[in-house]
């Protein structure tokens, strides 16, 4: 089959932040023998090609042009799949004044999609019929496997994967106070820099951005595991995504600093990540 990622609704700043979400889907489909293309130009392939959209309809023109295209009965048949990455009930995302209308517009889009693939097990079944809804578990992909640096050259003790906010900064300062060398990907670094940082790090730290968040980030954990990183994950998710903790050094928020200190000083810190990646490759 032919899958075409139409990413114009993320142009251009947003495109820099979705690589960890898009590339596993692209290369997972290619591993199954499908043809996958990406684009931002308005020409879209007709049925039997599948147009894949990644949710983000914060702005009216994006949702309106989508609905107009899908409502135009004079056009040839098309097929649309929507990948959803966020918790529908996360007010920080779905009711954020910087992204007005994001939730409402997503709900408007659902009836016009042939299928929906959520990557977090939020309440999508309340809005999408079961026959059009399939959960997408992130897993290992050989094409995205990368190698980190030799242990002796790993000069970053802990790398924060994501932007630094007040919640994460408190942990960052705790780690620094304990003498660890700490760095951060800052949320929007291109992959050639983020991968360099990850390759240099003994530990990659995966923390939620805010207390109310209830789902971990499969794209972030998988990106780190693909590079053989030893991932310290904040332990809070009780959903089906908790299986990802099997491949991380998971611990609760209050224990993160001590866990990182212990691990960073452990002689097998790098080997733990490499072993986790092997388990990840066999188990997912």
């Amino acid at each position, binding site marked *: 089959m032919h899958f075409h990622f139409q*990413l114009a609704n993320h*142009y*251009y*700043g947003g*495109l*820099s932040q979705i*690589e960890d979400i*898009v*590339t596993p889907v*692209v290369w997972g489909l*290619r591993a199954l023998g499908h*043809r996958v*293309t*990406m*684009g*931002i*130009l308005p020409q879209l392939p007709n049925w039997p090609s599948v147009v894949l959209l990644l949710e983000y309809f914060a702005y009216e023109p994006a949702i309106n042009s989508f609905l107009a295209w899908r409502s135009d009965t004079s056009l040839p048949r098309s097929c649309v799949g929507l990948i959803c990455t966020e918790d529908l009930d996360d007010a920080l995302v779905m009711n954020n004044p910087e992204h007005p209308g994001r939730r409402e517009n997503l709900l408007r889009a659902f009836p016009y999609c042939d299928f929906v693939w959520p990557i977090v097990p939020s309440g999508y079944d309340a809005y999408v019929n079961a026959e059009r809804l399939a959960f997408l578990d992130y897993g290992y992909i050989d094409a995205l496997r990368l190698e980190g640096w030799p242990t002796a*050259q790993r*000069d970053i003790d802990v790398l924060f994967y994501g932007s630094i906010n007040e919640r994460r900064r408190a942990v960052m300062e705790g780690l620094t106070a304990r003498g660890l060398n700490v*760095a951060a990907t*800052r949320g*929007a*670094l*291109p*992959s*050639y*820099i983020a991968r*360099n*940082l990850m390759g*240099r790090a003994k530990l990659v730290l995966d923390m939620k951005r805010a207390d109310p968040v209830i789902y971990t980030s499969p794209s972030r954990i998988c990106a780190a595991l693909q590079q053989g990183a030893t991932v310290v994950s904040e332990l809070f998710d009780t959903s089906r995504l908790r299986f990802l903790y099997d491949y991380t050094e998971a611990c609760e928020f209050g224990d993160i600093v001590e866990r990182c200190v212990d691990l960073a000083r452990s002689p097998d810190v790098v080997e733990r990540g490499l072993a986790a990646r092997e388990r990840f490759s066999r188990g997912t």
Partner: protein
Amino acid sequence: MRFHFLLTNHFRYGCFRIEDICVPIATGLGELGHIVTYGFDDDVPPWPAVNLLVENFNNPAVVDQMARLKAGPQRYCFGVVGHEDIADAAIFDNPSFPDRRRNLERALTLADFGWTIVPCEYGALAGGERMRFLEFGYARSLRHNASLPRDIDVLFYGELGGRRLPLFNALVGRGLKVEASFGLLPAFFVQDLIDRAKIVADIGRADGLRFLTPTRICAALHRGATVMSEQIDRGPLAKLYRYAAPVTIDDFVETAVAVAQSGRAPEIGQKARELFAVETSMAASLLRAMTLPLFAELAAA
């Protein structure tokens, strides 16, 4: 040695635009056995690490930082990577970037050395005598054998702008499938487009440019695409026409249509890449650019 790209002046979206500059240099240095790292802000390792600053100092903060560190008790080493023609008024006399030239000139006086990837006239500037031409070449680690069908006829690499857009539209009008990287798409996206492209179009953004864009040509060649480059360059970079087919802007559309429809584009691209691999080397170019006494001192440190 450790080379550290200090990219504060490009954070955050600028970092996406200089990947084609940084990655080949980093890869070539890695093939020579050096360690390459990236950092921002106060992450400035002291001597004997080499801090590489990629030009665009319209905001003077990083140049001010260089000056402060150079004046302090600890020794630091800085190298400036130039990537634009200093005679190009659209870049260096652009009212949107009023301080770009002045701060480049300041940076050159502070830097221990510089590498320019376009062979323009730095010699007349204070500190310019420490600049060396860095010829972009083949790096084995950047080679990528695309497994995707080449279903895009022509890919415009860069912003479309007023000069490229008519060519884009003319090709669409001739029934070709045409795409563009728009200058700001992230690498995972652009690389996918290159892998699908029969032809990568390397057309100048404006009339009167003197130099080819080695970063663009090299990125496409490493991925086996056929490159068609506008015939503008008569200097050392004209060597790249051995691997990128020269074409005038007037002939571009007809030539692109003929090549795209010939079915020979993949073969042309692969042959060009093999020639590029035999005749050029990013690592060897870097060694030539490291002929200053400074590097012997660094190697001994």
